[in-house]
């Protein structure tokens, strides 16, 4: 197995699934000749041709709506939205159509589209190239929301999303595209939807985090370990439906939980995780579930570093929880 970047793993998943199943197509802005602004679709046009690697006009309603129609008529479209910040023109197509097609037709029609979008901060991108929108989609019944944090998970989860029968919002932590490397199995490889990953086992406190915050959690946990605090890190990978069993078991054991995410705090996914934990683990809790998150402001440009949770802020939350 080769060590590859996360973006290469995405590219690998796309190529592998397209080679396996001729109904898999990719579409979006600049995905063909351009190879994708992050190069996720590089080489696919040459290999699979313009019928399956579709450069679209600049319109997200068209991209998502067309993908829905393709899915209804036997294809398996993987649509790329250039940045998750630019998905909103298609929000109606996502929440009113993609998410509800199976339900409203009682299963006669489905919209098993995979919508890939680079997400999160870390590239000095300001307001519109940095946001973390997962909560909007988790709140929308009918959507599966996935966010990998390692190359192998990226490959395996994307392949599972493509083969699945549900619409998937597949958020890719762009900060990690080229900064993490890892071994990725060659050829067909699947990671199941709905199963979390224990990034680091630990006994004293459970930290739930995902995407670009996983390396931050690891640093904070290492620092805590040096102080004798043993943090368990859980990356749910599939944000919804959440692997609640893994979290519950951990928190029942540790009695302490911190949720760490980039998105603004209020009504972020951290709120849901906190609500679930206190509902399910109430009698085991030694401290309130803490949230370390982006602030409730638009994503700033100059102060990005202060906006994004870092190992120090995370460590302070660990301290506060341990000292509660």
């Amino acid at each position, binding site marked *: 197995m080769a060590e590859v970047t996360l973006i290469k793993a995405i590219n690998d998943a796309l190529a592998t699934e397209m080679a396996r199943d001729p109904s898999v*197509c990719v579409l979006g802005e600049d995905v063909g000749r351009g190879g994708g602004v992050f190069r996720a679709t590089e080489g696919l046009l040459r290999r699979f041709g313009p*019928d*399956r690697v*579709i450069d*679209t*006009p600049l*319109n997200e*309603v*068209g991209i*998502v*709506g*067309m*993908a*829905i*129609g*393709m*899915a*209804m*008529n*036997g*294809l398996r*479209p993987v649509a790329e939205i250039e940045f998750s910040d630019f998905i909103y*023109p298609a929000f*109606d*197509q996502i929440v*009113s*159509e993609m998410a509800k*097609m*199976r*339900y*409203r*037709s*009682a*299963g*006669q*029609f*489905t919209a098993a589209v995979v919508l890939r979008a680079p997400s999160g901060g870390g590239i000095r991108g300001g307001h519109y190239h940095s946001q973390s929108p997962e909560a909007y989609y988790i709140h929308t*019944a*009918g959507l*599966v929301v996935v966010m990998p944090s390692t190359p192998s998970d990226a490959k395996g989860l994307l392949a599972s999303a493509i083969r*699945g*029968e*549900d619409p998937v919002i597949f958020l890719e932590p762009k900060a990690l595209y080229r900064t993490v490397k890892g071994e990725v199995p060659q050829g067909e490889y699947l990671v199941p939807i*709905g199963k979390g990953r224990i990034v680091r086992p630990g006994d004293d406190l459970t930290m739930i985090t995902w995407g670009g915050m996983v390396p931050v959690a690891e640093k904070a946990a290492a620092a805590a370990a040096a102080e004798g605090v043993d943090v368990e890190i859980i990356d749910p990978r599939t944000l919804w*439906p*959440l692997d*609640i*069993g893994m979290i519950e078991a951990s928190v029942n054991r540790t009695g302490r939980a911190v949720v760490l995410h980039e998105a603004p705090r209020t009504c972020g996914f951290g709120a849901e995780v906190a609500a679930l934990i206190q509902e399910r683990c109430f009698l085991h809790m030694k401290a309130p579930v803490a949230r370390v998150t982006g602030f409730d402001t638009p994503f700033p440009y100059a102060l990005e570093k202060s906006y994004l949770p870092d190992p120090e802020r995370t460590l302070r939350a660990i301290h506060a929880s341990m000292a509660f």
Partner: protein
Amino acid sequence: MTDSEILSVLHPDGTVDPLLDPGLPDPEMLSLYRHMVLLRAIDEKAVALQRSGRIGFFVPSTGQEACSIGAGHAVREGDWIFPAYRDHGVGLMRGYPLAALVGQILGNTADATRGRQMPNHWCDRSIRLVSVSSPVATQLPHAVGAAYAAKVRGERVAVLTTFGDGGTSTGDFHAAMNFTGVFRLPVVFFCENNRYAISLPVEHQTATGTLAEKALAYGLPGVRVDGNDVLAVRKVVGDAMERARAGEGGTLIEALTYRLGPHSTSDDPTVYRSEEEVAAWRGKDPIRRFAVFLKGRGLLEDPAAEEAGAKEAVRRAVEAAEGAPPVPLSSLFEDVYSEIPWHLAEQRDSLLSGKG
């Protein structure tokens, strides 16, 4: 053809323009007529059901029967239909059963879609009649995607999508028309310009003289047709579907018509339309107009009997469907995903056990 030319086939005296006559066999013409009559009977009954509280809501198509029946008749096996809420006629003409339609309205176990949606939001996979949505024009981009899939597989099929004059203002229209032009897709955009989007007159919807000319902005042809003339609609939609199937790309059709009733059972059109205007259009009733022609041809004898027959058929269908049991509580949690995830299982169990 110039933009403002309006194609029509049926002359007021009951004759037809021989150059434009789609030349349908007699039984087909009678079938068009009967479906129009049935459609109106459905409207009448559904509105009555709503008034008596037995259904929640209804959108009638009274006055626009020539549009949906004419268009529906141009759809062939293998073609796809992405209709708007007002176009039950298209499905009906394609064979969507009256019983199924009535079941959907009632939302009980006679509804193949398990009471999930309001009346008028039908679908039937077996005839590629796609699930209707309430947000205006969201079906247009789906039509594009379905057409794309058919095209890359080399299928000789066309995709029909229907919508109103208001629909042309939506972003979904813009996206769908543009993608259709760029990818040269077999989509027929059938716009029923009934002159109003709820209360808004079409003159305030857009500053163009016609809706058809909007097609040019996307490199597509645009055609206008008399929407109260079922043969003209059949002709124009049929030609466009044929072009689409032949790989010659999409078409925008503007059918000029009028809704004689309210926008929906929640609407009071007297607030925004004059009696005279409505009366003038009532004089152009598409069913009566077609009846004159059919009588002249000796194909129709007793319109009143046809109407009575249709009403009776609808009455019986409602009677049959009304007896069906309500949808089970557990169905609330199904079809959200392909499988029921833990959180929905928990929510279902707590509801069924009377705990949560």
